């Protein structure tokens, strides 16, 4: 089906992004302004810092996205924007910007669900998607399993009861004296480590549960390095040269938990195909462990391209385009939501 390129905007957390996606999901441009450096000193995303940065970046990223694609407003078919879930103050900046553009340029507008867009990022490279899929979205803010019957139909099967996987990696990295964001820092520090050196228990919950829980694993890491009942202020009881093994073991435990839950979801639903998206889907150990589990259990694992795992606007423009093709759009009263 034909539809002019869609401009996507993303500002739900700590990345301000704009992208243009055309026919057959062809990526015409993608610009991402990351705020990681601005949040690093706080060990996590500070909403007020995020809001200030989004406001400064929103116009430049849109201008660059259009310029890189060699397009102007008259070439566009619509504007898609993340309007849920995320930080309200950040969502409002992107959503208001999108409404202003849609109004000024007389273009249709559509609000896009950030999690559904992460799932769509894993679908975009597939020449002929074969629905349904199990979808795992794993990031600093989300760890959830869905049944995906179409790009626009996702049913929640399970989600984290406490920390998201990426959040657990961030907090573990802080505990281990590593940088922010924690996922890449732990991956790097644990690259040469033995993932079986510290046998953390997999937090699989009840035998049929598709939910996740990583707070106990985080405490297990704390007690491993500080002793039973230890606090973050206590000295290490294990030698500091264990760091690579600690990182590899912690990262591997999270990866194996995610892979086992995907397998469980496939077995329970009879769906042998899994889509994986979100920032933690970049993690090399997760990719390796998931491939091994898929091979063992007989399911296919499709990861989003690494460049579209972290927050980006390609997935927003892509899913927005699919929504326009299905006749969906919103008016200028489009609202935002922190959850849902």
């Amino acid at each position: 089906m034909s539809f002019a390129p869609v401009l996507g905007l993303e500002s739900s957390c700590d990345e301000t992004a704009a992208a243009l996606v055309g026919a057959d999901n062809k990526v015409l441009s993608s610009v991402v302004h990351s705020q990681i450096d601005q949040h690093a000193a706080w060990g996590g995303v500070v909403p007020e810092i995020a809001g200030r940065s989004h406001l400064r970046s929103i116009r430049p990223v849109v201008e660059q996205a259009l310029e890189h694609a060699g397009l102007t407003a008259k070439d566009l078919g619509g504007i898609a924007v993340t309007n849920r879930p995320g930080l309200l103050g950040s969502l409002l900046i992107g959503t208001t910007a999108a409404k202003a553009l849609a109004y000024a340029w007389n273009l249709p507008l559509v609000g896009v669900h950030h999690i559904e867009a992460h799932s769509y990022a894993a679908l975009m490279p597939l020449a002929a998607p074969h629905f349904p899929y199990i979808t795992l979205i794993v990031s600093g803010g989300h760890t959830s399993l869905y049944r995906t019957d179409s790009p626009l139909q996702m049913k929640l099967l399970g989600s984290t009861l406490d920390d998201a996987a990426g959040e657990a990696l961030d907090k573990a990295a802080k505990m281990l004296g590593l940088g922010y964001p924690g996922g890449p820092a732990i991956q790097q520090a644990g690259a040469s480590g033995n993932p079986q050196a510290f046998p953390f228990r997999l937090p699989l919950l009840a035998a049929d549960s598709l939910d996740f829980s990583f707070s106990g694993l985080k405490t297990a890491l704390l007690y491993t390095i500080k002793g039973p009942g230890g606090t973050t202020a206590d000295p290490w009881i294990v030698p500091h040269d264990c760091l690579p093994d600690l990182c590899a073991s912690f990262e591997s435990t999270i990866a194996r938990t995610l892979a086992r839950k995907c397998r469980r979801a496939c077995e329970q639903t009879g769906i042998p195909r899994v889509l994986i998206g979100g920032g933690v889907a970049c993690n090399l150990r997760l990719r390796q462990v998931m491939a091994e589990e898929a091979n063992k259990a007989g399911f296919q694992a499709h990861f989003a391209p690494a460049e579209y795992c972290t927050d980006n606007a390609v997935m927003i423009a892509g899913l927005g385009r699919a929504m326009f093709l299905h006749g969906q759009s919103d008016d200028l009263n489009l609202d935002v939501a922190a959850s849902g």
Partner: protein
Amino acid sequence: MLLALELSGARNTLALGTETQIWSADFSSQRGVGLMAAMHNLLAEQKIEKSDLRGILLGLGPGSYTGLRIACSAGIMLGYSLQIPCCGLCSFAAAAFTHCPPGESIHLALNAYRQQVYHACYRRQESDLEELTAPHLCTPQEIAELIGSNCFLGEKKWAPQGVVIQQDCQAHAEDILTYAFSLGFHADGAGFENGLPPEPLYLRPAAFRPKDRIE
């Protein structure tokens, strides 16, 4: 024709106008998300085309950072997409210009929460407004001393006894336009070099201290 947006407090307003005529709308009940629809409606009611707009003025606060950023995001992107200038003015100054009698000075105080108050002081001389105290944060306890016996815009609880009070110190978008025209802005889009960059008046740091614990 100029457009003004004012979302620094609980009341959300927008105005369209020239040096001789101003139309305004209050969309407080729709919150900030209703801004673009309210703008569309006001333009339609007055049979004004968006292509007639020659510039956008934003009330920059002090006030609610969320509301101010909605106004700034809309103003920045409308300015970009319609290829017209966009700049900001201090909302306190605009309110002072509207409410301060010529020859007098006026204090403004707005709840900044966290036991703090935004405060500023201005003197009005005919068509000129002089900033005596720039917008800043202070404590509620400091306010009465700062105000003395001068005119005051703000909540009654902060004013010394006997002071003339108007409780609503938030500027209206109409005030932004009126103040802008007094500063030399013109409905044809001239004068925008007199404005401030379209960013809220941030009187607080974005973050106070690094988190030092693992939750």
